């Protein structure tokens, strides 16, 4: 018989246990959860707090304004200018494709660019502005701005970009900017780069990167999970970079560039009293603004494959046999070693024969009997062949080194080349051969292995001009009352220097001077021509030169000079690649520079 009471009793006893089991299971679950909470919050709370902070705060960089670059008179070489960019905020724009189509008359975007933008829309948060086109012209800005209300979501943003108001003037010197790469990160270890950062790649922009750069500021933004900014927590303003005042005289620079216009070559103008660079030209040049705007494929290809190598700064990277401009070095070495004196004379018949080999003078008929001054004036090769024989290559090399040849000047520009001053040890180390006596003769007239950069030549002639002091060439003007210190003072006796100078003065002012047609108008200058062989000249049996018509095989024309002769204020070197003779191709350029400089500043002491 079914009994309610009975059933209750049996069921009660068993059920109590079962209820306890369920209660125990719940309690067990609660303990596990409590334990995990303790583990997360109490044991590891700090760690998770850090993670939460990382989540919450986004550092937004505030770019620092890059310092301007000025010339020695405060004229602007590089500045920052506003760059107008069109951006769209996709979440405010309805159909982006339609918007772009409607704006197309004002933008003229190529189809692949439009594709790229549309792809970008997919990938980017829709509240972030998406850059459509930068470097808008004023006309574009005006056209778009006046219709902006009809383009939903479109905004014109202003950013600062680097601009070079003088175009290609001093382009190599100033350098250009580019996106940071591994090499930059390694080189500027003090800077915290972020990917996409802009950094000086060449020239002043690179050399003075640390000064120009300033310090980036930041805004600490509180962000939500999708990166939308909620509010600003903290702000650290950017410290703008310092303006950089260069020793360059932009007008002299421009004049020197005009003088070399259309040619391939270089000129360096130094103040011989302190090593300050007044002008440094490398032609052909390029417009650094192009690096900001960007190149088309064709433009870039043209720039890179141009045989005149416009991207190379020939003033520091071009290495040329110095030709006859090297004769001063040989003369100084011989004077120092006592191998010659002011009265030493050598006879030039047009050639000398050594070891069954004929060494020619540039003047087939010979110069006859001449002393050092005359040999410099007329650039007699035989005189220096004979002088070098008794001197030996190592004595020449020592003298060259003390005048700064064969090693970098330390000017600090990226990519400076050292040139080459051969010696016995160098020959042995490089080729494993002994030095042949004939090589000394070749070297004595600046041919063969010896190489110099235009900057080294300018520095060398500056030392001759200033009494033998080698300054490290610099782009920065030194403070007025602080005399510049030479990196080394060569121990050249004043009497020896006087002889060299006399020869150099005669080059421009003597009756037989090789550059007498190109003496500057208002001042007396001293100089030395040089012609350096690109390929070994072919000669007929008679010794007559065979003319090479191909421009690529034409000799480099060189000229070094300083002026005025009694109180030198300008020392320079000119190299015209494949220009032919130093006198006819390089000396006129020097004349033009001297004329411009002394016309402008007079001859009074600075």
């Amino acid at each position, binding site marked *: 018989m*079914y009994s*309610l009471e009975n*059933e*209750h009793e*049996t*069921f009660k006893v*068993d*059920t*109590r246990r*079962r*209820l306890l*089991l*369920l*209660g125990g299971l*719940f*309690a067990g*679950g*609660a303990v*596990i*959860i*409590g334990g*995990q*909470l*303790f583990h*997360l*919050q*109490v044991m*590891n*709370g*700090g*760690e*998770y*707090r850090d*993670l*939460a*902070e990382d*989540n*919450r705060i986004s550092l937004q960089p505030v770019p620092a304004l890059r310092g301007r670059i000025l010339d020695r008179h405060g004229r602007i070489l590089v500045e920052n200018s506003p760059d107008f960019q069109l951006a769209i905020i996709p979440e405010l724009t309805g159909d982006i494709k339609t918007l772009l189509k409607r704006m197309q008359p004002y933008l003229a975007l190529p189809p692949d660019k439009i594709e790229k933008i549309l792809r970008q829309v997919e990938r980017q948060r829709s509240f972030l502005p998406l850059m459509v086109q930068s470097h808008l012209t004023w006309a574009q800005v005006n056209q778009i701005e006046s219709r902006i209300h009809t383009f939903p979501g479109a905004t014109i943003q202003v950013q600062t970009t680097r601009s070079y108001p003088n175009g290609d003037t001093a382009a190599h010197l100033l350098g250009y900017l580019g996106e940071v790469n591994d090499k930059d990160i390694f080189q500027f270890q003090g800077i915290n780069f972020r990917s996409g950062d802009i950094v000086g790649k060449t020239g002043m922009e690179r050399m003075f990167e640390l000064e120009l750069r300033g310090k980036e500021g930041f805004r600490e933004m*509180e*962000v*939500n*999970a*999708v990166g939308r900014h*909620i509010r600003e927590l903290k702000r650290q303003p950017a410290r703008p970079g310092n303006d950089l005042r260069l020793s360059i005289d932009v007008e002299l620079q421009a004049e020197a560039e005009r003088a070399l216009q259309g040619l391939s070559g270089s000129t360096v103008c130094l103040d011989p009293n302190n090593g300050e660079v007044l002008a440094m030209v490398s032609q052909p040049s390029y417009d650094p603004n192009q690096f900001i705007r960007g190149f088309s494929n064709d433009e870039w290809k043209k720039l890179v494959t141009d045989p005149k190598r416009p991207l190379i700064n020939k003033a520091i990277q071009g290495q040329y046999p110095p030709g006859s401009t090297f004769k001063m070095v040989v003369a100084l070495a011989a004077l120092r070693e006592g191998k010659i004196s002011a009265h030493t004379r050598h006879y030039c018949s047009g050639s000398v024969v050594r070891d069954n080999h004929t060494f020619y003078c540039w003047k087939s008929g010979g110069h006859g009997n001449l002393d050092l001054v005359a040999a410099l004036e007329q650039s007699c090769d035989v005189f220096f062949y004979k002088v070098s024989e008794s001197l030996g290559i190592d004595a020449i090399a020592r003298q060259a080194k003390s005048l700064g040849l064969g090693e970098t000047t330390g000017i600090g520009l990226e990519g400076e080349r050292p040139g080459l001053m051969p010696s016995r040890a160098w020959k042995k180390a490089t080729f494993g051969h002994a030095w042949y006596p004939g090589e000394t003769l070749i070297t004595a007239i600046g041919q063969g292995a010896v190489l110099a950069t235009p900057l080294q030549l300018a520095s060398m002639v500056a030392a001759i001009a200033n009494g033998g002091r080698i300054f490290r060439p610099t782009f920065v003007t030194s403070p007025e009352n602080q005399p510049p210190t030479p990196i080394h003072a060569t121990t050249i006796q004043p009497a020896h220097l006087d002889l060299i100078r006399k020869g150099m003065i005669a080059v421009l002012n003597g009756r037989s001077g090789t550059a007498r047609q190109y003496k500057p108008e208002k001042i007396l200058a001293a100089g030395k021509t040089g012609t350096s062989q690109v390929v070994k000249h072919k000669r007929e049996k008679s010794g007559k030169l065979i003319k090479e018509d191909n421009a690529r095989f034409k000799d480099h024309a060189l000229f070094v000079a300083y002026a005025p002769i009694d109180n030198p204020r300008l020392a320079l070197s000119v190299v015209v690649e494949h220009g032919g003779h130093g006198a006819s191709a390089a000396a006129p350029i020097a004349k033009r520079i001297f004329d411009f400089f002394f016309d402008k500043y007079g001859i009074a002491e600075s």
Partner: protein
Amino acid sequence: MNIPADDRTFRHLGGNGPGWRDRLSRFPTSLLVLLSLLTLGGFVVLYSAVGGGENIDYVWRQSARFGFGAILMLVIAMAGSEKVYRRYAYLFYGLSLSLLVGVFLSGTIGMGARRWLEIGVLNLQPSELMKVALVLALARYFHDRSVSSGLGPADLVIPLLMIALPTALIVKQPDLGTSILLCAVGMSVIVAAGLEWKLFIGIIILLGASLPMGWNMMHDYQRRRILTLFSPEKDPLGAGYHIIQSKIAIGSGGLFGKGFMAGSQSQLNFLPERHTDFIFSVLAEEWGFVGGLLLLIVYCMIILRTLIIATTAADRFGLLTVVGLTTLFAFQVLVNMGMVIGLLPVVGIPLPMISYGGSSMLTLMIAMGLVAHVGVHSKQHGRTI
């Protein structure tokens, strides 16, 4: 319907039982107080979770639901006869099951998850009804069978079918969380009804063995959620995102929390679904270990209170009903907390009384009303605690 003889002595709804004053005096007020406490605390967290200010509407809506739920609980608890729910248990179950079939049929047309049935203006979620209906039907089934020794395999065929049918339909919706919940609730009733221990262990083993099959039946995203649980870092912006961000929120709360409205994780949108399934993360971030523990304690008190009611139940139906409904409540607490603190896979189960949403809260208040009903009609005369 064949009504047993002893039932006939009561008149339908409120017949011979205790008078309504008496019943009211025996209403487990402490249960309602604990639930109110929980819900009020939940409002504070919800207010913060939705960002406060203009979104205070969320709190108003939620409090309206609670108010309605509290009245529902009282009415259900006070309903006249102790046998009224037992009588309609199968009917209620059948109705819920047919609604689920309705969802299933209309669901085959639509894409993706379909859990709702639109009947006129009413948006009904039959799976919610089924939670309660299953408990009542199982309780009725075991009530009707006297068991002196343990339940054998033959006694389980019908109950297991009663669980399996709605579970299968809900898995198809797909709503993994609710299906697991149904199984757990059903099992708890079976265990309480007197399942043989040997059989109990056998079923556990069987369930374990069928896991691979269940795995195969799962949707890709469900599998991903489970895999993600073990290595959330592998997919930090995808499936692992919830767990990672939730753990960061909870962990960064520390001992005392970051303070009301000051949880950076929750205030700044790093937490998804933070006002519904992940609301506990907000609480734990802003109120810390202390807050989380306090919540856990309140839940335990509620569960303890309901289990005490179970011991005083006047009949088997009452007892099993309370066990099933308590499991319903407790399981949701454990699973929700377990998933937001990274112990269990993320399945869509709300935190009782705290998560924003009407269905869950109303279902639970109905369940608590039924629990209270058992208390009101307990065999012990005099106040329950």
